[in-house]
């Protein structure tokens, strides 16, 4: 049986997503426990078969579109369907070509720093991120399955016809077409019989897998953003105990136990009394105190002599703990910035393609929407396409917006933590942090646009404008 593959960091958190992507046919060949040549070959064959089937059926749909391009309504409807599924083909190809970049982003969080005072907070926010990521995955999987189910159900309603333009009289006639979910050209006759059933089954498989391919990649992107946001929340939460710790360095306080008591006025991170922690045994040398940078990372900065005028009578270890807390915070923040930059580099181009195709699709859908004349199959299918396309755009816009808000609110958290009582060192730290955090971290679509709710609002506004203009032109 397959042994549990040893993973760390983001890969562990995103394992269900990765497994689903491998099942859907993405060219994701890492993160298996068994890497023998035979099983790798089998996996490559599996992905290639899926890729071939998806591309072939897509080409059949395109041929159908070219075949019946005389009549405007038929052409518009077919173009929308072709564009709709272009997302899946593009995402499949994009992942196959850029898998190195994806692996690199997934590996960024493999080694993270830690500090004994803040491990509890770190674990809590990590768990929160994990819960949210799982919930998002289930939600999107549910939506995908629901969409496929409703698409197949809708096939059985209404007339199964296609529109043909009569060349002599220039009016539209209807011609019977096979009752399939998607209009495509097949080399065999699919009007009835076993070939009809085979084509139907193929199309159901195709619908499910192509939607899954597109959506699962988007879920991975949004999960990365969720993780980054929760890390920023963790950093905001430990700001206050960190300030109190730093304040202890050169503000005279009579009682060392007072130093680490969390302020009782508001709910804040519980800073444990360091004499409870078994630091005396573990951190006996200056080399292995506070910060443990496992694996790759910078050289550990050794602090010099402890300040001679420390009036609080802190032991050397306690003082190192206080100083190392600031370093932990800054290093962790830099790590998050690296993660966000890597996410942007990896997925930015895919977002650009997505937005380009969605814009064209939505324009055509606005035109289709002007022709709705009642509650029928046409109305449902047009509204379904609209909702799904807008929903996809909304999905990554909302998470991109959350990242922007979280990263720009770090400054407010830093400002609100009673810095005026702190030491000069602490104040300088907070000031420099605030300067950096004034500029929010954002994801851009290959530098063309920023992913935020403004983008979604402008897309929605554009659709409504086109709709109104087209309605007036009728």
């Amino acid at each position: 049986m397959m042994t549990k593959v040893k993973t760390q960091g983001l890969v562990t958190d995103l394992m269900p997503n990765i497994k689903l992507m491998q099942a859907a046919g993405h060219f994701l060949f890492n993160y298996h426990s068994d890497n023998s040549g035979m099983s790798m070959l089998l996996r490559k064959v599996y992905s290639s078969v899926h890729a071939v089937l998806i591309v072939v059926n897509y080409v059949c749909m395109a041929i159908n579109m070219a075949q019946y391009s005389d009549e405007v309504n038929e052409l518009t409807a077919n173009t929308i369907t072709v564009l709709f599924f272009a997302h899946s083909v593009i995402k499949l190809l994009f992942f196959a070509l850029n898998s190195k970049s994806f692996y690199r982003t997934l590996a960024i969080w493999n080694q993270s720093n830690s500090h004994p005072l803040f491990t509890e907070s770190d674990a809590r926010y990590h768990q929160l991120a994990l819960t949210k990521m799982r919930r998002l995955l289930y939600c999107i999987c549910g939506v995908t399955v629901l969409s496929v189910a409703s698409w197949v159900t809708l096939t059985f309603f209404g007339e199964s016809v296609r529109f043909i333009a009569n060349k002599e009289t220039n009016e539209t006639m209807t011609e019977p077409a096979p009752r399939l979910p998607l209009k495509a050209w097949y080399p065999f006759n699919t009007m009835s019989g076993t070939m009809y059933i085979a084509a139907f089954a193929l199309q159901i498989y195709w619908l499910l897998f192509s939607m899954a391919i597109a959506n699962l990649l988007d879920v991975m992107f949004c999960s990365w953003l969720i993780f980054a946001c929760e890390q920023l929340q963790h950093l905001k939460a430990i700001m206050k105990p960190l300030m109190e710790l730093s304040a202890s360095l050169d503000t005279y306080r009579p009682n060392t136990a007072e130093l680490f008591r969390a302020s009782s006025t508001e709910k804040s991170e519980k800073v444990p009394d360091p004499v409870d922690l078994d630091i005396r045994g573990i951190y006996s040398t200056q080399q292995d105190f506070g910060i443990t940078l496992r694996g790759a990372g910078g050289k550990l900065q050794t602090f010099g002599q402890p300040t001679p005028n420390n009036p609080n009578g802190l032991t050397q270890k306690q003082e190192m703990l206080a100083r190392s807390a600031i370093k932990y915070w800054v290093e962790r923040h830099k790590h998050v910035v690296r993660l966000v930059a890597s996410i942007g580099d990896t997925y930015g181009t895919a977002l650009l393609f997505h937005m380009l195709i969605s814009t064209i699709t939505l324009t055509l859908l606005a035109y289709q929407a002007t022709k709705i004349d009642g509650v029928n199959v046409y109305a449902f299918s047009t509204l379904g396409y609209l909702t799904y396309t807008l929903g996809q755009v909304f999905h990554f816009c909302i998470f991109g917006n959350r990242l922007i808000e979280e990263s720009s609110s770090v400054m407010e958290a830093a400002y609100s933590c009673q810095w005026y009582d702190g030491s000069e060192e602490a104040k300088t730290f907070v000031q420099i942090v605030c300067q950096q955090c004034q500029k929010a971290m954002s994801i851009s679509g290959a530098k063309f646009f920023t992913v935020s709710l403004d983008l979604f609002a402008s897309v929605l506004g554009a659709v409504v404008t086109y709709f109104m203009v087209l309605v007036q032109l009728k």
Partner: protein
Amino acid sequence: LNSENLFLNRAKIVMKIMGVWIPPPNESIISKIYKFIMMFFQYLILLFLIIYVFQMWGDLDAVSQAFYVLFTQASLCFKVTVFLVNKNMLMQLLKQMKSDIFAPKSAEHESILILYASKIKRLLLMFMIAAQTTCALWALKPLFDDVGSRKFPIDMWMPVTSENSPQYELGFVFQFVTITISAYMYFGVDSVALSMIMFGCAQIDIVKDKIMTIVSIHDAKEDERKKILQDNHKKLVECVIQHGAIASFIQITENAYHTYLFFQLTGSVGIYCMSALRILVIEWQSMQFFSIVSYLFVITSQLFIFCWCGHELTATSEDLHTVMYKCLWYEQDLKFKRDLCFAMMRMSRPMIFRAGHYVMLSRQTFVAILRMSYSYFAVLNQTKKN
């Protein structure tokens, strides 16, 4: 000087009469029943309106007439529900209003508070009068416009017909009273949200006043200088703490009331279209025309008050950054200057009140909403002509 009473006394009285203010800890069963009955009537009217719209679907005129009353009623039900659901946040806000940080420390501060309170109360009074006028005009419509035929003030599905005598009067009174109550509830809930924002503005002005009382050390004697410097630094720290408290106060207000504000802003666009379409068809001599015009005035004034308040908050907090620079910082010690630098960095970010955590309340938003409504109205008008 009790800030809560200064800003909210009218709203409190109105809402206590309506039974929807924060209940005391040991609320009697009678007041609970009273609140339930009030809310029940409002939701009942909403239900009747929805039934009417479904009945009249297809007739654009009748639907547009019913639609704007439907939207108003839906907006009110949503508002009062959000208000009641978020009463914990309201209690927190009221507690903060009474806290030491926000207490006025001099006559100057008190006059600032009184000034802002009177500003917002005047605007809300104007809104209240307009709302009551609209209700009165709606009530007078059957008496003036359709004399002879007995119709109800507002077209909606009624469980009783207008033929039988006692039922007609009962139905008439029921509609009139419930609509008037809904206007008062509107006034009450909006008062609370807007008063909180204006309280925040007043507090920012108080901070400006405080920082300008930084004393010069130029003329002081040598031994007094240290003490003055310490006092000035203490004042700066007080200002910083107060600014942080104002920011969190506004944040709590936004969290409590942003949903219905967003709903109202987006709905106002539809209201303007529908009302404008109605105005074009009705002859201008009738009572109905005046009632629609007065209704439009009410909606516009409400929208404007919100956008104006949001803009006041943003403008005042931007001004604070400039005023911080105007104080006598160059005579103070290094510690003061470094702390001032940090405080100004934070204050360079203005406080923004966002409806639905997204739409910024400002005068530009008001103009944008009017523009959007006009373009939708133009399209609908064109479609109707064709």
